[in-house]
């Protein structure tokens, strides 16, 4: 399984010189980049986005990716989508799960899969991330005190 899931983590940068063209246009990449970075910055959680093949047991594959997502895994949220398998998995770490209960994730999944079904991958991802970060709110340190 480890060979199947390659570690391709990278922040989105403009000058990508991959052998294969990225699946998104520069404008779409900019939207994804902003959604990822802003939702991570607002919530203090670490959102990462994986797009590619997952093993047959997609849940186990996504959880394995989450374990390898770098940084503090407890605070990280992995959004993994497999366009070939038409599966979307959201995996939350232990600290992230307290602020993003499974029901909130399920609602975001519903939003996203609705857009994916219409062929709008980027719109679905951006809206889903927005919904997740709205639900998670600000980290405790940044919250206004009453």
């Amino acid at each position, binding site marked *: 399984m480890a060979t199947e899931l*390659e570690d391709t*983590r990278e922040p989105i940068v403009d000058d990508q010189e991959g052998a294969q063209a990225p699946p998104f246009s520069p404008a779409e990449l900019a939207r994804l980049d902003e959604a990822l*970075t802003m939702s991570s910055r607002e919530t203090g959680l670490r959102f990462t986005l994986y797009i590619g093949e997952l093993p047959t047991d997609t849940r186990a594959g996504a959880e394995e990716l989450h374990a390898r997502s770098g940084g503090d895994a407890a605070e990280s949220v992995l959004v993994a989508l497999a366009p070939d398998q038409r599966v979307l*998995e959201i995996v939350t770490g232990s600290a992230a799960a307290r602020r993003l209960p499974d029901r909130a*994730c399920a609602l975001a999944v519903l939003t*996203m899969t609705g857009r994916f079904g219409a062929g709008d991958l980027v719109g679905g991802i951006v809206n889903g991330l927005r919904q997740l970060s709205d639900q998670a709110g600000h980290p405790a340190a940044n919250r206004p005190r009453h």
Partner: protein
Amino acid sequence: MTVVETLLVFVVAPLAVVLLAYGLVLLPALKERARYKPGTPWGHAAVWYEPHPEGGAHGGGHEEVEHTTGAQAAALTIGETAGHPRDTVGNPRRTASGGARGTW
């Protein structure tokens, strides 16, 4: 009007106009990359995007340091036990504790 002129005016000219319209319609679609349609093969290598680090470093050296796993893994081993994603044997430990799944 000769036969050639008739052909030019009534066949070639309309054909040219039609082809021009055809080209104008199809050109933008050709420039655009193939749009994802559910059910069609994806055909791209797996990508894994992560947020830019706090402070907005953009492709700087700082970023490189942050993404070399060796140094970071060592730091995590020493500093943190709670979020440390490897067990004693060195296999990735299960870090997931929630989430959701959906298909389309």
